[in-house]
Structure formats: structure tokens, C-alpha cells
């Protein structure tokens, strides 16, 4: 392996172990990226470290949501009738639509990462915009769902009411109630379901809001061309975060909305 000679003519035998970042731009010139942090030896190292760091952060998120998922698992097991009946209060078309919306948002995000990798600035900005739009749409549907819960007195706390579980309303189409009535103590446990519903979807929505704020910032930076010369790490790493938030929802939807959609009359 021949020793390479740097621009100052000094033979640097360490060059073969630590090449300077070697991004070649469209003109075929070597470019030192301004985002190169000097405690990293190569841009490659910086990118992989950043990605690894984001994955470790996502691990903390898995464990954070994990506690809530366990609480859900426990109480669904203990109070299945209450959970089943309460779950049927959730709106499946809205939940399913939200799932599709979030998957679509993730799809656009993935395309955005691709656009950054192949350095298509306009496409990247467009993809980020679509990602944001679908993300906001998700939150809009969620807000509508929360509002409905508020009106039905299903928000845990002082205003929570179990009356529709102990005395289920009659369905005008069938002339019978949709659900069997619950005993008062079991009906009380629907509050735990709704608490977990709000806690888990609320925590999820909180992460989405943070993501959307970051998306605005990233879109603006992308528009300025910061990610079209090979520096894709922020887009890539944000994509990891966004997809993770998507995965959480992929589990929340069936667990919360689809417990028992075929109640026996």
C-alpha cells in the first residue's frame, strides 16, 4: 500500500488508516463537509455513530412504552369484559384510517431518505412536506376521537361516567343493546381501559408532535440545500425516529381498537 502524499507534501503513513472524508461532489472535486465534527476521523464514522446513537435512543423509547404495554397486558387480562366493552366504544374506521395515514406518512419519509441519498433536493423537500401533512392529518383524526370521548364522559377523572356500561343504550336499528350490561364494579374498570387508551395514544401523539416540529425544522434546512450534498444523517436518523413512532401505533391500533369486535348477544 503506497503511502499517500497530502497537499503539503508531507508523507502521512497514517493516511491509509484514516483517510480524510472523501466526498466527491458533482464536479468531481473533493469536498470537506462543513458538518464534519472534528472528533470523528471520517464522515463514515460520524454517520454510523449518529445512526447507532439514534437506535440506542429508540431502545430507550421501547422500554419507556414497554411499561405502559405491560400495564395494558395485565389489566386486559384481569378485566377482560370491561376492556372488551370499552374498546368497542372506539371508532374503528377512524383508527384504521389513522393507521393507513401513518403508514403513508412513513412511506413518504422513507422516500425522503432516498431522495437525500440520491441528492434530489426538490424531491426531498416534497417528501418531507407530505410526511408532515399526513402526520398532521393523523393528529387531526386523533383530536376528533378525543373530542368524542370527552362528549361521552369517557375521559378518566372526575367526569368519568360508567352509566352507558351498566345500562347500555339500545341500538335503534336492532332494537337491542349492542353490549351486555356490566356489573357496577366491572363497569368501573372501564376507566382503567380509557386511562390506558389516553396514556398510550397520548404519549404516542406527544411523540408525533415533537416529530412534526422537527419535520418543520428539517424541511426548512432541506430547502436550503443542507442535505443535498451527501450529508444525509439528520434525515436518516429522523426517519428512524418517525418509523419507530409508526411501529408503536401499529401495535396500539389492534390492541386498543380490536379487542372484541364480534360481541355475542
Amino acid at each position, binding site marked *: 500500500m503506497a503511502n499517500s502524499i497530502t497537499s503539503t507534501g508531507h508523507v502521512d503513513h*497514517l493516511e491509509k*488508516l*484514516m483517510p480524510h472524508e472523501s466526498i466527491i461532489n458533482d464536479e468531481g472535486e473533493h469536498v470537506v463537509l462543513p458538518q464534519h465534527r472534528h472528533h470523528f476521523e471520517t464522515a463514515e464514522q460520524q454517520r454510523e455513530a449518529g445512526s447507532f446513537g439514534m437506535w440506542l435512543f429508540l431502545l*430507550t423509547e421501547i422500554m419507556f412504552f414497554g411499561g405502559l404495554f405491560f400495564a395494558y397486558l395485565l389489566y386486559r387480562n384481569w378485566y377482560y369484559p370491561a376492556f372488551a366493552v370499552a374498546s368497542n366504544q372506539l371508532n374503528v374506521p377512524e383508527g384504521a384510517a389513522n393507521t393507513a395515514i401513518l403508514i403513508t406518512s412513513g412511506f413518504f419519509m422513507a422516500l425522503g431518505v432516498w431522495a437525500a441519498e440520491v441528492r434530489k433536493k426538490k424531491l426531498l423537500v416534497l417528501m418531507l412536506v407530505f410526511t408532515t401533512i399526513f402526520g398532521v392529518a393523523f393528529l387531526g383524526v386523533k383530536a376528533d376521537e378525543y373530542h368524542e370521548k370527552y362528549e361521552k364522559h369517557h375521559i378518566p377523572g372526575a367526569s368519568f361516567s360508567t352509566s352507558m356500561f351498566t345500562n347500555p343504550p339500545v341500538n335503534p336499528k336492532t332494537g337491542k343493546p349492542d353490549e351486555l350490561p356490566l356489573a357496577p364494579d366491572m363497569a368501573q*374498570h372501564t*376507566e382503567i381501559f380509557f386511562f*390506558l387508551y389516553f*396514556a398510550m395514544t397520548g404519549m404516542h401523539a406527544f411523540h408525533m408532535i415533537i416529530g412534526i416540529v422537527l419535520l418543520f425544522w428539517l424541511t426548512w434546512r432541506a430547502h436550503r440545500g443542507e442535505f443535498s450534498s451527501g450529508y444525509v444523517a439528520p434525515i436518516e436518523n429522523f426517519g428512524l425516529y418517525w418509523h419507530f413512532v409508526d411501529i408503536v401505533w401499529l401495535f396500539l391500533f389492534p390492541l386498543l381498537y380490536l379487542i372484541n369486535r364480534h360481541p355475542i348477544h
Partner: protein
Amino acid sequence: MSTPITHTIVNLPDQATARIPKRNYINNEHGLLSWLLTGDHKRIAILYLISITFFFFIGGAFAGLIRLELLTPAPDLVSSDTYNKFFTMHGIIMIFLFLVPSVPATLGNFLIPIMIGAKDLAFPKINLLSWYLYVIGGILTLAALVLGGVDTGWTFTTPLSTHYLNTHVITAATAIFIAGFASIFTGLNFIVTIHRMRAPGMTWFRMPLFVWSNYAASILMVLGTPVLAITLVLVALERLIGIGVFDPTKGGDPLLFQHLFWFYSHPAVYIMILPGMGVISEVISTFSRKRVFGYTAVAFSSVAIALFGFFVWAHHMFIMGVSNYSALVFSLLTMLVAVPSAIKIFNWAFTLQKGSITFETPMLYAFAFIGLFTIGGLTGIFLGSLGMDIHLTETYFIVAHFHYVMVGGMLMAFLAGIHFWWPKMTGRMYPESLSKLSAVTSFIGFNLTFMPQFILGYLGMPRRYHAYPAEYQVLNVLSTAGATVLGVGFMLPLLYLGWSLKYGAIAGNNPWQATGLEWQIQSPPLTENFTEIPIIDYEAYDYEWLEKKQREEVTTVG
């Protein structure tokens, strides 16, 4: 050339001509903002050192108040609610604001990049963020204190903390939530740095064992702390809205809180002790002039402790209502987790065997660690067996057990590390005779404080009570007397280390003649650590390599 036989390995430069290196990380930039907005891992380590020392003495003050109340059997100093606040604040501050960040955030931050040949940690800004989160968590804890205090015990057990107390639980919970993220970010930074930023030739098995220990602790920080975070959120929500997740009257299970809480808090004790064990490996090797016996075993045992540490948490809940079957399983696993710790003790003992042992202050603390940690660890085995635990849990036996491992173990290790690396961090040596006196004082004070507590617990004195039957008084008085001595022992380093900053002897690069990359660079180090990236072609703790290097080193001009 033959070296005279000495009883110390300290090798200082000629004090008449020695100077602190002109350019180092301390004087590289000036001004308060250059410290508060720094990305330099060494400066952040010093920021952490100052903060945790501050909180240590506040936590220590509470310990003093506890022991003061317990001088007499009658509850005559403070009311029971106030006493509850004393031990709660003592626990919260000492665990979350002192022990958890102690070695990783100070010594780990300072040394890990240097030990592996890197210029800084992977994410310097996140490192700084970590410190700010720690400070915010600390301020919120002080706020909870000033507003009236928390009296739940550091364990926040439900339903006491959620339904029966109207103290500032939510403030304290928020404080720890934030401080937890400081811990997470430190661990995250270490893992990425150790995996991805080692210098050429620095393979995993050439790294100092200090790095291995911090790596294992970092895994625990990243995977365990978030569960604490969600648990605290649930407690806060339970208090605020009364959702019923831990409330039996609404169908909740208070034990769910304990499962989630201890899922973090047991690994937390390993987060606290593992970095200390890393320090001990370095100190024992240096002051026996010998490679650590069974390097691979010690390295793997660190990771094993981290792994098994996740499997044993319910041994804190044996009497709380878990099923007997699960108690059996957890008890068995608890016996297993002791094995890797014991492996380390054996390996250190074999390192000492046939080594050239000298007794500088770091070594004194290391010896204290080995003895006291062994006692603490063995008493942990007693507590891990179900039959014994029924009688010993929630008594002073538990208090003695964890103080032996945490103070006799971890705090001694922290002091060993501070003394060992003080010359590297500051360029100055501390006064050796005074530090030896301080170490011995701490050792005596510690044993006088906590050995009686084993007996008290065995005799049945409950913990967290501010009154006790008169027959326990003698042991309590002994314990309080010991605490006074211990307090003196801990105050002294604050004084003489501060003194040494201005008047200590100039240390030079390698006053201990230790191996390790940090001893090949100047004291204090340059901001960028190395003038050129080192290439490693020798093993860790290679004293022959060091000797050869010193022989061939040019020390005079002409």
C-alpha cells in the same frame, strides 16, 4: 541504572523545574461561558464533579440529621413526618444525584475517550445536555425540599405515594424523571464512543477494564432508566387524575408499581457499582505493578453482571405479595447474579498475589472496597434467600447491607478513583499523608456506623422508624458516633483536594508509573487529548512495555 528500593511508586518530576503544561484543557479558553457551553468531555466531567460534590454534602447533612434523631429511643428531635422527609431526601439525593452519576459522569466522561485514544465522546453536545438535565433535576429536587419535602421514601411505594400523602411527590418525581435522562444520555454516549471511536489497534480486549465496566453500566442505563421514567409518569398521573392504575379500590394493583420501579432500581445498583469496580481494577493493577489476573474473566463478568442484573428485581418484593413461585425463581436468580461479582473479587485477589504492592491512598481505598464490598455482597446473599428475607427485610439489616455495598463499596471506589486520577485531571498531587489519614478515618467511621446496624436489624429494629425500643440504644449511639467520624473522613478530601489545586506538587505525566493511554499524555491533558492519534500495538496493563518505554525515554537535552 538501578532504582533504589522505595515503599512508594510515586515518581514526580523535579519540583524545582516542573511546571503545569502551558496549554491544557483548563486554560485553553477563558470565561464562564466557555465552561457552561463547552463540548469538551473533560470540562463537562469537572462540571459534574462540582455538582455531585455539592449534592453529596446535602445528602450527607440529611444523614447527619437521621443519626442525630436516632441517638435517643424517643422521637424527640423531629416529628415523624419530618423524619420521613429526612430519609427520603437522603435517599433520593444520594442515589439519583450522587451515586448514579458519580464515577460515570465524572471519571468516565473524563477518561473514556482518552483511554481508547479518541479526541472526545461521540456526541459532545448531548454530553453537555446531560449535565444540564442533571442540574435541572437537582434544582427541582431542591425545590421539592424547600417547598416542604417529600416523605414517601426514595422508593415512592404505592399506594402511600399516590393516595395517602400530600407532600411534593410530583415535584420530586419530575426531578428524577429529568435526572434519569441525564443518565440515559451519558450511557448512550459511552456505548457509541466505545463501539465506534477506538484508536487504531485498540481492540476490545486491549481496553482498560475501567472502560468495560462503564460500558456494562451504560447498557443498564440505556435499557433500565426509561422504565423508571414511565413509572414516575404513572405515579404523577395517578396523583393528578386518580386514574386507578395503582389503586386497589379501582381495580389497580399497587404491586404493578413495584414491578416497574424495581425493574429499573435493581439494575440501578449495578449502574452504581460497576464503574466503581472498573476503578478498582485500575488501582489494584497499578499499585501491585501487575496485569489484572484473568482480564477476560473480569471483562466478561462486567457484562454478565449487567445482563443478570435485569433478572432479579423482585427480590426487593418478596414480602409484598408476589406469588411464592415467582419469589422462588427470583431468589434463585439472585444467587446467580452474585457469581460474576465474586469472580471479580477473586481476580483482584490473584492480581495482588506476587505483585509489588505499595499503599498509596488509592490503594488504601481499594483495599477498603474489597473488604467492605465483600461483606455487603455476602449479606446480600442472606437477603436473597427467602426464609432469611422474611425476617431481615425492612429492618436495619437491609440498611446496613446496602450501605456496605454503596458506601463501603461504591463511595470508597469513587474516592480511590478521584485520588488516582486527580494528578491527571489537575496536574497536581494531593498531600499523601493527610489523604491516608482521611482514608483510614473514613474506614473506621464507616464500620463503626454500619456494623452495629447489621446487629440492630437482626435483632429486629425496623428501618424508617424514628423511635425504637430502649434496648437498641447502645448500638444506635455507636452508629451515630461512627457517622460523626465518617463525616470528618469525608470532609477532609474536600479540604485537601481544594488545597492541592494551588499548592500541590506538580504531578507530571505519570506519577504512578501506570500503564494506560491517559498516563502517556500531559497532566492536565490538552483539549484535544492527543497531538497525534496513537496506534496501539500492546496489551493492557503491560508493565514490561512501560518499563521499556521509560528506559528508552529521553529525559535530558544534550
